[in-house]
């Protein structure tokens, strides 16, 4: 699927997650955040960068992991990206939806 945003044409899946991280840039992140009703601040960016770095090192992402190693506490994470923060933040960061594996 294609999605037009910030003057770019992106490949996304049916839930709106980017399928190719190489297509992402900060401008796109800002626009994706707006779609979620979020104005990005420095704190948001710190979290997004952390998620992208973890993803690039193939480290599995979990809310617990953010609380343990991330730049913010779980509580702050929820304040920054209300309701389903990991799903929302991953979408804005241009990385796949974390699979809560079974």
């Amino acid at each position, binding site marked *: 699927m294609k999605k037009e945003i910030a003057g770019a044409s992106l490949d996304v899946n049916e839930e709106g997650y980017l399928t190719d991280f190489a297509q992402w840039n900060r401008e796109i992140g800002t626009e994706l955040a707006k779609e979620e009703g979020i104005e990005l601040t420095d704190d948001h960016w710190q979290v997004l960068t952390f998620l992208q770095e973890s993803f690039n090192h193939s480290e599995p992402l979990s809310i617990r992991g953010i609380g*343990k190693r991330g730049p913010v506490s*779980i509580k702050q994470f929820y304040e920054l990206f209300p309701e*389903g*923060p990991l*799903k929302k933040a991953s979408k804005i960061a241009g990385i796949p939806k974390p*699979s809560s*594996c*079974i």
Partner: protein
Amino acid sequence: MKRLLILGAGTAGTMMANHLRPKLARDQWNISIVDQEKVHYYQPGYLFLPFDIYQPKHIKKPIEKFIPTGVNLIQEKIDKILPEENKVLLANNNVLDFDLLIIATGTKIAPQEIQGMDGPGWRNNIFDFYTFDGAKALRDKLRKWQGGRLVVHICEMPIKCPVAPLEFAFLAEDFFRQKGIRDRVEITFVTPLSGAFTKPKATEILSHLLVEKKIEIVSDFAIERIDNTSNTMIDYGGKEVQFDLLVTVPTNMGDEMIARSGMGDDLNFVPTDRGTLQTETQENIFAIGDATNLPASKAGSVAHFESEILTENILRFINKQPLKAEYDGHANCFVETGNGKAILIDFNYSHEPVEGTFPFPGVGPLRLLKESRMNHYGKMAFRWIYWNMLLRGRHLPFVTPKMSLAGKHFDDMQEHEN
């Protein structure tokens, strides 16, 4: 004499002992297995104990009964693994050397991870059914409970047997109806997931059943703490759920022994190659069952499929042959839905549960993703199969470790990443 050491004599460790003893020459290989317990618990039975469907005697047997002759059973707590020295330290200060190590120490509940969970309410109006003691205490509670707000809850993923909490909700619904007090019980299912289950196709069907049985669902609920005065669960986003009786599945973690050994992830699960079952720690250390960090279900059926592949890989390792990356994440679970019926689901790393027949393509007799009585009998027969075939390492007839695609209705064979 070389030494093969198995840590944990639960489902996976016991199966490995039974698989390997006949395959390794007794004059060359000493096999030992360590467990702190004297009793082997049939954990799938914990689901039925609270409703008086099974009695304790159905689900408890002596551990030693299932360890083959020629394998040395050591009943002691493991303190830690010293990987570089190829040694395991026991709580009684004994040291065991190994040439090959298999970690099968499983997972257990950690209610202490959530503030207020193991406080004054624990086993009073907050229960778990993932331990023998918990399931039994809940049985005693349910025998006299007169109704109110029942909340069935999952703290965080991953948990073992991820369908068990839903099954509990279905069986509870049935139980209260039989008892004639269904109208006095409000049942709510609270989950950190976005829906009833992790896999979309199965979620659709299970959500439908929740509606049919008038079980309310609260999803995306990430619990932060429990307030014991108002009996309320509060999530990180500020959402609240009030309960009279809470049946929760606490955070599941690997044993602290794994953390002490410096071999675990955030939840003390051992990073393990998902195809070969070799740990990332060291070549001669393998892991199986709930103890691994594999993105597969933590289930007895998974441990069974893994055990056939791990046996082959252990023999290959000993013969200095390359390992086979064969494990595909195959899982196969019966889901009790109440009213003497069950659903069967079969899936792996890349394929979701779909409809069809099992194990014979087009014939069955078991039906995938459809409620049926036959599936329920399958679930009940599983206990016999577990004690008599699975633990003893017997190959299950017609069921292969790698998932079969025959007889299944894949509308689009989409492979999805994990």
